[in-house]
C-alpha cells in the first residue's frame, strides 16, 4: 500500500536500502524486517496467511531473533488478537488485544501529531527528547501490559504508543511521516547491531 514507499523512502533518506517484498527468500535473506501497514487488521492477517508469510515470520522473528520493526497496523498485527470487524487472531508475539477507542466524545480516527512520553528506555528513542510529537492515524489501539511499553500517548485515555520485547520493536505512530524525530527513529533502528 501507499505507505510502503514512504517507509522505504525514509530508509533511503538515512542512507540505507530497503526492499519492498513478499518473496520468502528475500525475507529470509534480509538483515532486518519492517512490517508497515495501513488498512484493516483482518485483511492484513488474511494476506499474510495467503502469502504464506506467517510461519516464515514466526521463524525469522521468534526463533532466529531477527530485528523487527512494526509500524501502525504492523504493530497491531503482533498482538494476540484484534476486535476490528469481529475477532481476529494476530501473530501473537506480544500478549495484547487491539481495541477501539471507547469514548463517545472523541473524534475517531485519532489523527494528527501527539506527544509520546517515554515510559521505558529504548534504543529507538536515542537522541530524541521525551514528549516529542509523532504522527498518528488509527482508530484502534494496542492494549497490553505496560512492561512492554516504551512510549505512552494520551488521547483522553492513555494508550501504548510503542513497544519493545527482545528483538521486536513497534510503533503505533508513523516514524516515516514524523519528520526529524521520526527519521531519527528509523536511523536508530537501522543502527541496532544485528545479533
Amino acid at each position, binding site marked *: 500500500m501507499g505507505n510502503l514507499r514512504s517507509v522505504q523512502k525514509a530508509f533511503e533518506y538515512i542512507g540505507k536500502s530497503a526492499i519492498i517484498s513478499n518473496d520468502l527468500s528475500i525475507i529470509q535473506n534480509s538483515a532486518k524486517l519492517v512490517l508497515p501497514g495501513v488498512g484493516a487488521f483482518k485483511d492484513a492477517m488474511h494476506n499474510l496467511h495467503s502469502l504464506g508469510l506467517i510461519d516464515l515470520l514466526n521463524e525469522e522473528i521468534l526463533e532466529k531473533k531477527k530485528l523487527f520493526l512494526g509500524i501502525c497496523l504492523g504493530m497491531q498485527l503482533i498482538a494476540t488478537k484484534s476486535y476490528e470487524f469481529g475477532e481476529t487472531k494476530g501473530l501473537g508475539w506480544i500478549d495484547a488485544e487491539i481495541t477501539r477507542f471507547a469514548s463517545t466524545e472523541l473524534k475517531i480516527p485519532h489523527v494528527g501529531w501527539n506527544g509520546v512520553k517515554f515510559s521505558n528506555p529504548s534504543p529507538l528513542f536515542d537522541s530524541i527528547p521525551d514528549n516529542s510529537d509523532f504522527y498518528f492515524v488509527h482508530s484502534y489501539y494496542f492494549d497490553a501490559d505496560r512492561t512492554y511499553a516504551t512510549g505512552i500517548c494520551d488521547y483522553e485515555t492513555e494508550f501504548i504508543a510503542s513497544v519493545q520485547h527482545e528483538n521486536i520493536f513497534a510503533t503505533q505512530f508513523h516514524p516515516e511521516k514524523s*519528520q526529524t524525530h521520526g*527519521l531519527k527513529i528509523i536511523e536508530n533502528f537501522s543502527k541496532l547491531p544485528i545479533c
Partner: protein
Amino acid sequence: MLKHRLIPCVLLKNWQLVKSVQFDAYRTIGHPTATVRVYNARNVDELIVLDIDASLNNEPINTEIITDMANECYMPLTIGGGIKTIEDVYAVLNAGADKVSINSQAIQNPTFIHEIATVFGSQCVVCSIDVKKVDGVYRVFNKSQGILDIDPLQLAREYEAQGAGEILLTSVDHEGMGEGYDLGLLQSFHHELKLPIIINGGMGEPTHGAQALSLGADALAAASIFHYSKYTPDMIKRELLEKNFSMRHLLS
C-alpha cells in the same frame, strides 16, 4: 495531547502549484517539488495538494509529479483531484501519497468512499466538500456543475457513514480572501460529526485560526497566508500556542 494541525492546501495546475481566489484567478506560487521542499523544511504538520487539471479537464492524474512531490515529503501528504476509481486511488497512494482527497466522484456516489475505506482503510480517505452560501443557505458547490441542491452537513454525515476518515470543508466564498474562515459554516458542523474537520478558505492572520479552533475545527488548512503575508507556519503556530491552543512542539 493531540495537536491541532496547520496544513498548507495548494493547487496543482499545468505542472505548477497555484493559489486561487474564490476558486478563480489562479496565481502561480511555485514549482511543485521546490515548494514542497520548503514546506518540509519548515516542518508543516501535513500537506494537501489538489490537482485541478485532473478534476476539471478530465485529464489523467499526474502520478509523475505526485511521485516527485512525495519524495520531498517526510510529513503526511494528501492528494486530490480527478480520482474516480479504486485504481486511481491505488496509483496515487503508490506514487507516495498517504491519503486521497475525494470530492466530485463521491457527491453522486457516496459508496465510492466505502469502497476506498474497505480496501485501503478509513485513515486514507479525506472527503472534500466545497460550500457556497446561497440566499443565506449553505449549499454544496461543484466546479463543473455549480451550486447543487445538497446540504453540506447532510453530505458529510453520509460520508461519515460510508467510512470517511476526515472532512476537508472549504468555503468558496471565503477562499483566498484572507478575511477569516466561514465561521457560520463551521458553527453548523460543530458537534455534529465524529470525524475530524479540516476547515479551509480564508485564513489571513493567526486570529482567524483561533476563531476556527474555538468553533470545533480540528485542523486549519490555508495557503495565501503562507505566500502573500509575512506569516510563516511557525509564526502562526506560535501565536496559537500563546492563545493556549494545542499545537505541535516546534523545533527550536
